[in-house]
């Protein structure tokens, strides 16, 4: 079994996730895209673990999952808070940083 294929698949998924973050305006969909990118990274980690014959990659992937879970919890809470005040989940509405 060729590990390279897995890694290429991970790259493709990562790129699609990146496009999702940049193109979609719904904050929740953006979050999904970020999750997709994290999953792509995880796939690469697991594939490299297989290639190297160690379990370190799997452990790191596990930690990534934990961090992703925490991130999702906080991110969704922020989206909730924004939605409450702005009545929208569109990321373009939150543009107070504009100069």
């Amino acid at each position, binding site marked *: 079994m060729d590990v390279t294929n897995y890694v290429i698949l991970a790259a493709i998924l990562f790129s699609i996730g990146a496009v999702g973050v940049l193109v979609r305006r719904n904050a929740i969909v953006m979050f999904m895209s970020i999750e997709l990118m994290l999953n792509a990274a995880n796939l690469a980690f697991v594939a490299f673990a297989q290639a190297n014959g160690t379990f370190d990659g799997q452990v790191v992937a596990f930690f990534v999952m934990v961090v992703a879970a925490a991130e999702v919890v906080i991110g969704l809470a922020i989206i909730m808070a924004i939605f409450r005040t702005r009545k929208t989940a569109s990321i373009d509405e939150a*543009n107070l940083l504009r100069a």
Partner: protein
Amino acid sequence: MGYTLAFEAISPIANTQVATGSFAYLWLLIALPLIGALVLLLGGSRTNSFGPLLAVLMPATSFGFAVYLWLQMLGLPKELRSQNLVLFEWINIGSFQVPFGFQLDPLSMSFVLLITGVGSLIHIYSLGYMDHDPGKRRFFGYLNLFVAAMLLLVLADNYLLLYVGWEGVGLASYLLIGYYQHKPSAAAAAKKAFVVNRVGDVGLSLAIMLMFVAFHTVTFAGISEKAEQGSATVLFLIGIFLLIGAAGKSAQVPLQSWLLDAMEGPTPVSALIHAATMVTAGVYLIVRSNSIYDLSVAAQNAVILVGAVTLLAGAAIGMAKDDIKKALAASTMSQIGYMVLAAGLGPIGYVYAIMHLLTHGFFKAGMFLGAGSVMHAMNDEVDMRKYGALRGIMMITFGTFFVGYLAILGVPPFAGFYSKDLIIEAAFDRSIIAGVATLLGAGITAFYMSRLILMTFFSNKRWEDDAHPHESGLTMTIPMVVLAIGSVSSGFLLTYNDALKSWLAPVTGYQTPEPPIAIPVLIAITLATVLLGVLVAVKLYLKEAARVAPTDVSIFTKAARKDLYGDAINEAVFMRGGQQVVNATTAVDNSVVEGSVNFIGRITLGLSSLVRATQTGYTRNYALAMLIGVALLLLLAAIVRL
């Protein structure tokens, strides 16, 4: 004559004693009037009832104590008369130490007696003169403040503490010139005196700084000890800076312009501050700095030059003034010019400078009080052309004024004869030019003083219709009489048995002048010049004087009426020049300094508006930028690896 006895040269004795006994309480001299000032100025209207009396009592008590100390001092041998009292360490920074100390020696004793004595008389006179003034409590408070500051000036044992008193009298002078607050002219005069005095103060402070740099001390004792170590340049510069300070305080050319305007103040103030005491502080400063001037002939020459120019300029202005107080003020300028000139002569002149200062204190203060009495009688009219023929109505005023007149003329045996003739002799000893200047000044003095007294007390009546002249009350006439007695006797007393010479010589040093012309001949020439001046005035003014000042006069008269264009010169050179400098610096500030700052600001603004375009506020734009960055990094990594 007694005073021509040949004295051998006497050097100053640099020896100070720690004050003991009653001298340890000499701070009371200053404290008493200071308490008076504080009570009156801080006490508010509740001191209205007893304030003026308290204010008279304080300097009078000081005077009593000063007389007691004087008698004590007379009992001491000459070497032990310089008493030094250090109250506490004032400034103690590394090697720079200044004590808060007083020095009572024959020189400052003379001043203390003059200030407290004449000051007390003028306080008494003010009781009558200011009787109807609603703000007299304030007036007396300021007057006490002045006495305290002036005593601090002459009693300080170092230049820094002297400077405190110097500024204190400046403040009191400012407050008293502007005492009639409702008069804009008084406010302007006060401001002018203040500003011009600041110019002089810069000179004095530069002198003190230079002393510290050169000698690391500012005490009189320390300076006289170390002065010989100073280079000629340093001594000359210190001398010049001290002279600038003295010129500011004593209204000497080129800082003379404030004194005539200062006559806006109440007349007792003009008598005390602007005739007898404060304006002579410059002379005190020069005499006190004898250790500096004795070592720098160049600085002495500068002092002589300033004195000679001022005595002639003052006399010239005095000839043209119709305002009685301004004429007297011009005379004061001129007489102080004599003193400064004498002080510039070195050991041969110091004693005569002080002697003339003391006699002048009597006769000029007396004449100012006389002028005040006349004004009091004539509804505060100051124009002599509205006076005339007052001698019969105001007998006492006329009598005392006439005594002062004879004294300033130098008619023997009145006070001025002793002091002024001695200055003329000493001036001839130094140089013919200085001698001729003093001689000429004496003649002009005789003319304008005769003119003044003739227009006021003789010639025809030129009164305003509502004028009802009358003699002033006792509180005003008694001080005038006392001062007149001083004007008669002080010259004789001070020279009798060389009293002042032997009294002051341990402090200032002394050397007998040896004029190139025989002294009796010189006296005769002087008296002839004076007589000539008197005769010219009698011819012009005895019968009649014009009620309105004639306008078709020579340019010299016009110039003298305008104070020899002193104000115009100040305005043209310093004010306009200053404005030009300010305009130029403003332009530089606007174009260069502000321009560069604004340029940097504009660059920042331009750059930030460029950068701002990237700040859309859209999260997705920022994310895109990050992604581009990541892609570029990867590209770089790939390129480097390839």
